[in-house]
């Protein structure tokens, strides 16, 4: 009877020990916090059809603050891009957060994990009236940005450039924003 009781205790004890040891070991060097930056970009002057021989091809105008995502923006059918707002805050891993965008839209997200190489992120982009624009869960490189956009009135586009950067957690400090 004593042996069976000890066997029953073995599993929870091993689980507790595992949960206590693994974070200390830090095998995957996962960060407990992540800095998420969301830039709201307005795209205008849509490119329609093939460029004709009479009018010269105009290079898209990309501001300097969007130079890191210029390669992605150049793929979109717009000539002009303008940074509307930029928000950068630190959030805790695996916690759902909500960010209000300047045009009344909301971006709900949850960083699933963050290590030196990859980041997992759940995104829920909603309109001002609550209509879901995009709901996705993606995994991308830690030094990369997720760019998503949608059409707007006036043949314009609204683009979100989302980037997640790991926040190193010093030893001994308690986690938090």
């Amino acid at each position, binding site marked *: 009877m004593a042996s069976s009781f000890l066997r029953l205790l073995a599993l929870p004890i091993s689980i507790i020990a595992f949960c206590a040891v693994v974070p200390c070991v830090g095998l995957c060097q996962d960060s407990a916090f992540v800095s998420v930056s969301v830039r709201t970009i307005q795209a205008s002057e849509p490119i329609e059809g093939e460029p004709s021989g009479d009018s010269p091809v105009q290079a898209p105008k990309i501001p300097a603050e969007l130079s890191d995502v210029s390669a*992605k923006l150049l793929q979109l059918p717009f000539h002009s891009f303008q940074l509307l707002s930029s928000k950068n805050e630190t959030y805790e891993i695996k916690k759902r957060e909500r960010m209000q965008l300047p045009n009344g839209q909301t971006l709900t997200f949850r960083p699933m994990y963050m290590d030196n190489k990859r980041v997992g992120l759940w995104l829920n982009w909603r309109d001002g009236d609550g209509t879901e624009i995009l709901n996705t869960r993606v995994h991308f490189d830690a030094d990369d940005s997720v760019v*998503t956009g949608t*059409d707007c009135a006036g043949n314009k586009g609204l683009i979100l450039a989302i980037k997640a950067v790991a926040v190193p957690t010093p030893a001994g400090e308690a986690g938090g924003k």
Partner: protein
Amino acid sequence: MTKQDWQEGLTEREELLLSQYFDGECGFMARRSAEKLISSNPLARDFLASLESAGSTCRAAAQESAVSADLWSRIDARIESEERAAFYLGERRRDAEPQSFLSRLRSRQALWGGLSGALAAAVVLVFFVAPVGKSSSGALLPGQPFHQAAVGGLAAEPASLTSNPRSAMEVDWMRANGSLKLFQDPSGKSATIWVRRRPAAARAVKAAQATPGISATPHLYLDGRAR
């Protein structure tokens, strides 16, 4: 041997000689003497005949006694074996009728039941147990090339959106209020996700011509109000 000895019967010495001769325990000289006595004395021949008859009688009696002892032991052994068999296998009964096919089949019910159970378990393992590594809608599939953009707003299968296997964006799921278009990054980074909404003018024209079942997407303005 004198005439008087012959007339008075065999002496003790002669009977002993004949007995030894009958038993085959004589030497060469004693056998010659016994043979000479038998040939010359009828009493010796009678004595020898009596010895032979007595011997045969004894042998017959011995044989009879030997058969009886073996039979009883055999009977005892058989009774014991029958008792053991009855204990382990049940009483011996005599089946008057030959067993039919169905009765034989029923008698093997346990064997058939075991075989069918084993066969069912094998079928379940082979056909219904998913092999390890098979992808599901929620699993990650790194490195899987993306061939088409998800149209209609729902991409159930996870996909890796990249032309460069070194850096890829993996999508577990993607749902949008409109059609989705993906623009690949030429540098191999993650693709750009575009939710395609129909413009208001085009939507108004097409709404009049649209067949039933087509729903228009809400029109988004920068001020956040939907019209």
